């Protein structure tokens, strides 16, 4: 007999070590994370404009930082974050009309968001690199 005071050690739920993340929950938190990241990246846009207003010399410094290898990697991440947030946001807007809540369509739209974000990011960089090289 166990008294109400003695606490039996029961497994906690969700059990983090064996918990398999679902596409739904991962995309949900990614939409929030990319939103926060894009808020920080938008500060870079303002820096770029303010420096542009300062004149050619300061602009060249920021342009150098942006086109450096680290700058390009960050910019690539920002591009993917943008497309993920854009596609995820459009998915949310469709949900707001009350459509697409069946389990199957949730997974179809989820994978569609992932595929579209990857393709758009790659396409944007392919075009960007080919125009800057040519």
């Amino acid at each position, binding site marked *: 007999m166990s008294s109400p005071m003695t606490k039996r050690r029961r497994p906690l739920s969700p059990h983090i070590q064996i918990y398999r993340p679902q596409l739904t929950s991962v995309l949900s938190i990614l939409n*929030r994370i990319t*939103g*926060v990241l*894009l*808020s920080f990246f*938008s*500060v870079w*846009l*303002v820096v770029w*404009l*303010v420096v*542009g*207003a300062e*004149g*050619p010399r300061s*602009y*060249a410094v920021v*342009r150098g930082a942006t*086109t450096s290898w680290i700058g390009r990697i960050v910019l690539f991440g920002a*591009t993917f974050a*943008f497309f993920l947030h*854009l596609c995820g*946001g*459009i998915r*949310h*807007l469709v949900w*707001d009309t009350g459509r697409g809540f069946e389990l199957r369509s949730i997974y179809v739209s989820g994978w569609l968001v992932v595929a579209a974000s990857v393709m758009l990011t790659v396409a*944007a960089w392919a*075009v*960007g*690199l080919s*125009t*800057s090289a040519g």
Partner: protein
Amino acid sequence: MASDMRSPLARASGLGSAKSGLRHWRAQRLSAVALVPLTLWFVASIITHTGSDYRAFAAWLRSPLTVTAMVLLLVVLFYHSALGLQVVIEDYVHSRVQFAAVIAIRLCSFAMGAAGVLATLRIAFG
């Protein structure tokens, strides 16, 4: 709970809906819809202007269409960002800091938007 001597009504009053949730929700969606064409335009312009020098950059920003789109983008972007960050703070911060953090987010977003718009206008008309 046991040390709280207030009546259930006193505990509940002042909590709960502030009757402003729908307005926030609607503004977030409206700004999201507006950002779809604005951000796509921005990304497309950046792709075609990567690595362009100052003269090309200034010439691009001086065209009336670009100025209009850039000002609209900055206003809607920082509005949408402030609304979104507010929700994130309200979800995870549950102390007195919450109110201060939301105010700070709003002020910073406003400052960023204003700085961006003024810089754009300065390049366009300077």
